[in-house]
């Protein structure tokens, strides 16, 4: 066990010290803080709330501005409609000087006329809010002129109850689908990371310009131990990196005062994700990583030059691409037979079974069976990989094709 930890530590530290690892980690952490603080940063450039978003309203009737404000509040808009006594000429001057953002002229001559004036046409956000509020204002004013009672006006504004329901029993509600979407985003991200890590791993054993350092190593430590210690070391680093990302994301949002459901994060639908989803995500990540890492180590041990690694990695990349294609097309038809079948194939399972777990109410034995199949596959690949690993190390010269696996196994079997 002693040598296992030495190799583990060495792989972990060597990879952790690489420029690519440090740069990726720093960039992602920085991106989290940037995303979480995006609204704050925009505010800094736009000035504070009190000064900004004040809309000067020329309202000769004196009655429209308060109703407009009420509508804006209802829309959750931060625009403040403020009646003004200034003339249009003065307001224009204010815009030119930059003391005023925009003004609105409201005139009521039978129908409501509104004119929104701002420095540039780019301020779409506020203009849209105002336009919507003026539209509602028109409805209120018309309703009043028609002599509708307050309750009738209330009825007019009641929002429509619109709900979507799925008929299939195993299908989930819209709300649940957002969970699934979050899982898939998350899972796709982690599978790609898993792939990148396993590629790292492969580079780790393949990049060796001079091949036989491995012979020194396998004369001191058994190849199985060496291979798994290395995979575990780099895998642990991957998990640590995910933890760093998770923690920095959490801290970023804490410090920025935003919740996961707000801003840029709302796109991912994180608000509905349950703890069990994360547990499944972590489990499938680990299994997916180990599966591909063992495969990568197996292929990586066959080559001595980085250029050759690319060629041997192609079949592995194809597997990942196919898995992603099945998963993406499975989002719309999670019950399709090909999705069900693919969810038991170990190379696709990390993505596809996860998708099914997220989007359908399938019995627990299904993911468990899939996990079992993956574990057995990892075991088999590990056993097989160790043979190729040993044989590959003892082989002379550089090899570039899958045909060499046969040769390597023959050599590995000599043991």
């Amino acid at each position, binding site marked *: 066990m002693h040598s296992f930890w*030495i190799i583990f530590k060495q792989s972990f530290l060597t990879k952790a010290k690489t420029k690519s690892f440090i740069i990726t980690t720093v960039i992602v952490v920085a991106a989290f803080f940037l995303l979480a603080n995006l609204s704050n940063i925009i505010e800094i450039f736009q000035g504070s709330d009190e000064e900004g978003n004040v809309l000067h309203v020329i309202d000769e009737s004196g009655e429209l501005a308060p109703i407009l404000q009420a509508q804006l509040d209802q829309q959750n808009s931060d625009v403040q409609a403020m009646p003004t006594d200034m003339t249009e000429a003065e307001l224009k001057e204010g815009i030119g000087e930059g003391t005023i953002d925009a003004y609105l002229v409201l005139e009521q001559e039978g129908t409501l006329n509104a004119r929104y004036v701002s420095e540039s046409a780019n301020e779409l956000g506020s203009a849209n809010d105002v336009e919507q509020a003026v539209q509602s204002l028109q409805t209120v004013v018309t309703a009043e002129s028609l002599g509708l009672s307050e309750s009738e006006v209330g009825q007019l504004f009641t929002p429509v109850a619109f709900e979507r329901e799925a008929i299939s029993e195993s299908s989930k509600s819209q709300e649940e689908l957002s969970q699934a979407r979050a899982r898939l985003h998350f899972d796709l991200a982690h599978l790609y990371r898993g792939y990148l890590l396993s590629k790292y791993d492969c580079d780790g054993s393949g990049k060796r310009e*001079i091949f036989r350092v*491995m*012979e020194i190593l396998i004369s*001191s430590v058994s190849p199985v131990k060496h291979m798994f210690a290395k995979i575990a070391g780099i895998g642990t680093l991957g998990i640590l990196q995910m933890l760093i990302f998770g923690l920095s994301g959490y801290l970023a949002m804490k410090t920025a005062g935003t919740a996961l459901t707000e801003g840029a994060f709302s796109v991912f639908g994180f608000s509905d994700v349950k703890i069990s989803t994360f547990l499944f995500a972590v489990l499938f990540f680990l299994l997916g990583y180990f599966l591909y890492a063992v495969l990568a180590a197996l292929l990586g041990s066959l080559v001595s030059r980085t250029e050759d690694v690319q060629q041997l990695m192609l079949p592995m990349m194809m597997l990942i691409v196919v898995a992603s294609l099945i998963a993406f097309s499975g989002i719309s038809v999670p019950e399709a037979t090909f999705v069900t079948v693919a969810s038991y194939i170990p190379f696709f399972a990390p993505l596809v079974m996860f998708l099914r777990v997220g989007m359908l109410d399938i019995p627990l034995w299904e993911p468990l069976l899939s996990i079992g199949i993956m574990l057995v596959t990892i075991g088999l690949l590990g056993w097989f990989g160790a043979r190729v690993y040993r044989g590959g190390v003892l082989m002379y010269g550089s090899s570039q094709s899958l045909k060499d696996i046969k040769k390597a196994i023959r050599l590995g079997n000599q043991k």
Partner: protein
Amino acid sequence: MTLSIQHATKRFGDFKAVDDLSLTVEQGQMHGFLGANGAGKTTSFRMILGLLNPNAGVITWKGKPITYAASPEIGYLPEERGLYPKMKVLDQLVYLAQLRQMPASKAKQEAMVWLERFQVPHYAAKKVEELSKGNQQKIQLIASLLHNPSLLILDEPFSGLDPVNVEMLKKAILDFQKQGATIVFSSHRMDHVEELCDNMTIMDQGKVVVDGSIREVKRSFGKQNVRIKMDVDLSSLKNTVGVVQFTKTHDGALFQINDEATAERLLESSMKLGKLRHFAIEEPSLEEIFISKVGKAYA
């Protein structure tokens, strides 16, 4: 405390890489392996180390087959060198020694002693890729003996080194042997084996051609050399009874002879020809033995 190989045979498919190899290396002895490329030296070493299992025969060290449990006692310098190019020299040495169960602090200390000895202490913090080939070789040798193994296997330890460094490494290996280590090494250079080893094995195409104590091998070869330096033409002596081979040299001639009586005959005859500047009976070189046994020049 002996390394024993009994009738070891290794086949790869139909190809016999090593055919019925037997030898014993006593503790503290140095045993040399000679042979051209593909003779089976590296395969023999891999079998000794347990990296390959023989198809037939038994290999033991201290009475037991070599397994990973014996790892701390074994040192190995593979023929094709390899170190992590991006790793620092000292880190690499400590890492490899740790894998042989040596504590990190002790490995660090010892590594510095060896780096000093090989006059490269300033490379400790450098990356391996920044070192010249010769210096990388020194680091490799240090890596193989840093953990103080009792059995050291060196596959072509001097290849690619300049003469100054060869001497430095030779001395280090000899000193290591004096401390009681058993050393098995292969070389392309016959003179290295002749100089360092007590016993040797010459292999050709997987088979042992010659083996045993170098002195014994030379004695039993049955042929000796007579070197004569004279200013006259010596070709008239080539038909002397007992002369097997005659080679003209720039300052005289070299005669391969069957027995010592022939040497006496040559001495008498040569003295009659003129002034004899030099006359010596020489042992046959390993090269000659190799050519005579294998039927071709040593690669």
